[in-house]
């Protein structure tokens, strides 16, 4: 049928944001042992407790095995072939302002459409930009500091705010949590740290752009955000990466802590290199993200738009400890060509009257495989707990797949748990209807898919939502059928 063919033809466009920036790298040799970990720690001038923590995690990791339960398939990863640390050379002394940055770096960001200067001036977004493993620019820090907000690279936090780091690091995702979290704990390179003190509402969206650029360098980011009593923080994370022939491992950890009456919103737009049309190359994204609603009436909200990576393994979850605390998970995951995604959430209800909402939208195109895997666990203590889950899958073409694995564990008879799921195929009748009204097939597909994702997009900050819609359009090009 001609429409199917046209739609499939739309999917055959190359990744638009793939490029490599020629920046001199300062790398540690490939492979992992205690010496490499000590070297990483030394290069980052970390206090003793940090090295001990890393080594402990490494020893735990050695005893663990890579998980195989996810519905994803990839050749074995040789962990000794990975380079665990690299930093742009020019950054050794640490830049004092944007002017000190390697101009090549600035151009990279400009190609990505995120000129730091413009963001600083126009958008009012504080950017902690991670280029490979070292933070190279932090803006608006002073303004935030006036309010008592700490927003800096993780390395800096380890040096300057070690008491906070010591207190919260691993308190949500313990280093022994899982294979990839343990690996991250041993070798994490950098990331972001944010602390919002009591009663402070962070006045701007905090934002980080990650890039993977050093050849064969695994990225092991670590992010820790703490909202103290009554505080509010909203964090945006967006990623793109250059084209690579070899697979790149990414194992990040994000921990969020919300105290009494605090709210944290964490939004991700992830667009790492997904591999080429035959499924070669692309990022392996094995991420552990978890938030702890520690205090009463606290709230943590995850919103993710996942369009990149060859493999996505990611379950941002919430531990609902405080009474009346709220956890939310809004997700759009798109797989095209040979991409595989196994993603979802974990909502663990511990406190009384805790509430969670899960809205998951999976889109599969080409040969893409999209799995929703979600756990809702209501513990005995969670009187009056409520959960609502909705998982919708949209199929484009007939070579892709959608899978849903909801796990429910309810130990309190008074809890209310609702789960709704649907699978639909993008209809030729829908596309024809749009075309009969004058729209091109491409616009029709984009409109239909964006409509499908609307519930999630409206949870994103405005400018991010626009970016996400564009990204979805780009990711779908040449994929529809």
């Amino acid at each position: 049928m001609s429409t199917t063919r046209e739609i499939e033809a739309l999917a055959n466009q190359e990744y638009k944001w793939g490029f490599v920036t020629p920046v001199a790298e300062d790398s540690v040799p490939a492979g992992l042992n205690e010496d490499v970990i000590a070297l990483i720690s030394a290069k980052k001038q970390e206090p003793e407790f940090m090295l001990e923590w890393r080594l402990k995690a490494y020893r735990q990791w050695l005893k663990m095995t890579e998980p195989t339960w996810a519905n994803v398939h990839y050749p074995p990863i040789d962990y000794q072939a990975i380079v665990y640390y690299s930093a742009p050379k020019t950054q050794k002394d640490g830049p004092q302002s944007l002017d000190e940055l390697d101009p090549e770096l600035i151009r990279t960001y400009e190609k990505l459409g995120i000129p730091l200067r413009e963001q600083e001036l126009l958008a009012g977004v504080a950017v902690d930009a991670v280029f490979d493993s070292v933070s190279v620019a932090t803006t608006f820090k002073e303004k935030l500091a006036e309010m008592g907000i700490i927003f800096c690279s993780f390395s800096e936090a380890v040096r300057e705010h070690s008491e906070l780091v010591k207190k919260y690091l691993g308190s949500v995702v313990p280093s022994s949590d899982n294979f990839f979290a343990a690996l991250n704990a041993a070798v994490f390179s950098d990331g972001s740290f944010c602390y919002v003190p009591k009663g402070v509402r962070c006045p701007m969206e905090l934002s980080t752009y990650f890039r993977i650029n050093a050849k064969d360098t695994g990225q092991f980011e670590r992010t820790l955000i703490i909202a103290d009593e009554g505080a509010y923080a909203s964090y945006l994370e967006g990623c793109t990466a250059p084209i690579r022939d070899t697979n790149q491992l990414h194992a990040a950890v994000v921990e969020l802590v919300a105290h009494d009456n605090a709210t944290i919103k964490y939004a991700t737009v992830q667009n790492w290199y997904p591999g080429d049309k035959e499924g070669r190359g692309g990022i392996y994204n094995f991420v552990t993200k978890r938030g702890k609603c520690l205090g009463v009436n606290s709230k943590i909200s995850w919103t993710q738009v996942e369009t990149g990576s060859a493999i996505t393994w990611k379950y941002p979850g919430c531990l609902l400890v405080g009474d009346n605390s709220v956890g939310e998970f809004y997700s759009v995951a798109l797989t095209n060509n040979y991409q595989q995604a196994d993603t979802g959430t974990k909502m663990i209800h511990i406190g009384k009257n805790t509430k969670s909402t899960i809205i998951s939208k999976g889109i599969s195109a080409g040969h893409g495989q999209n799995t929703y895997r979600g756990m809702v666990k209501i513990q005995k203590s969670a009187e009056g707990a409520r959960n609502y889950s909705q998982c919708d899958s949209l199929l484009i073409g007939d070579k892709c797949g959608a899978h849903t694995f909801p796990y429910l564990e309810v130990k309190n008879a008074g809890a209310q748990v609702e789960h709704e799921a649907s699978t639909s195929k993008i209809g030729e009748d829908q596309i024809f209807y749009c075309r009969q009204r004058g729209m091109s097939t491409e616009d029709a597909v984009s409109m239909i898919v964006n409509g499908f994702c609307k519930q999630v997009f409206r949870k994103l900050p405005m400018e991010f939502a626009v970016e996400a819609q564009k990204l979805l359009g780009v990711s779908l090009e040449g994929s529809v059928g």
Partner: protein
Amino acid sequence: MLEITNLHAKVEDNEILRGIDLKVNAGEVHAIMGPNGSGKSTLAGVLAGRPIYEVTAGGVTYDGKDLLGLSPEDRAREGLFLAFQYPVEIPGVSNMYFLRSALNTGRRHRGLDELDAMDFLRMVRGKMKLLGMDESLMNRSVNEGFSGGEKKRNEIFQMAVLEPRLAILDETDSGLDIDALKVVAEGVNALRAPQRAIIVVTHYQRLINYIVPDFVHVLYNGRIVKSGDRQLALELEQKGYGWLGIPNGTLSPAAVAGAESVLAR
């Protein structure tokens, strides 16, 4: 404006249209009638460029252009509008956004400026009134959760906004109660104009009591077996299709298997 010559078309392996000849001039209203499975909806679909149909012989010119050589979206941009028998639901896309996108693609095609949301709203308010469209329908997803009547009304509302030059109404009366039918017919009548042609496809006489056609054609087994003026429709009403030698209740099995099932899914 529209000239159909010896048009043959099939769906999968079933030949549905077996030589249609029809000429429609600007300003005219034509009714195409016939029993189920005679090929009425196929004809409407072929004219709009529905991909499931394959034209096997014959041709269609529209304003002197080869209509069949145009993509469905280009036909739409050139002013051809199909009011669907089964309007399609598009969850998450507001009726307002959808229609504005449609209008603006047409405007771009004609070299006009696009309308922003405010201008658009001003422009459509009067037309909403004409079709009795509640403002809440505009903010709901396209056809999602609409009643049968609301869907049909929405089709004619879109037609009123897009102001096509050739409108094809495919079984617009099906599923409408008499009040809704009157509203829809009034909407269509308000759009009758010297520069516009309308083709009304219907099984029943009912609709053309309200939208009075200039010409009536009876389609059977993929061919136009009789043409006339409004009188023909009235005779059909009294005597049934059997009067034309068409067995009562006859369904052409191939057509039913092909067209209707595909359209209804």
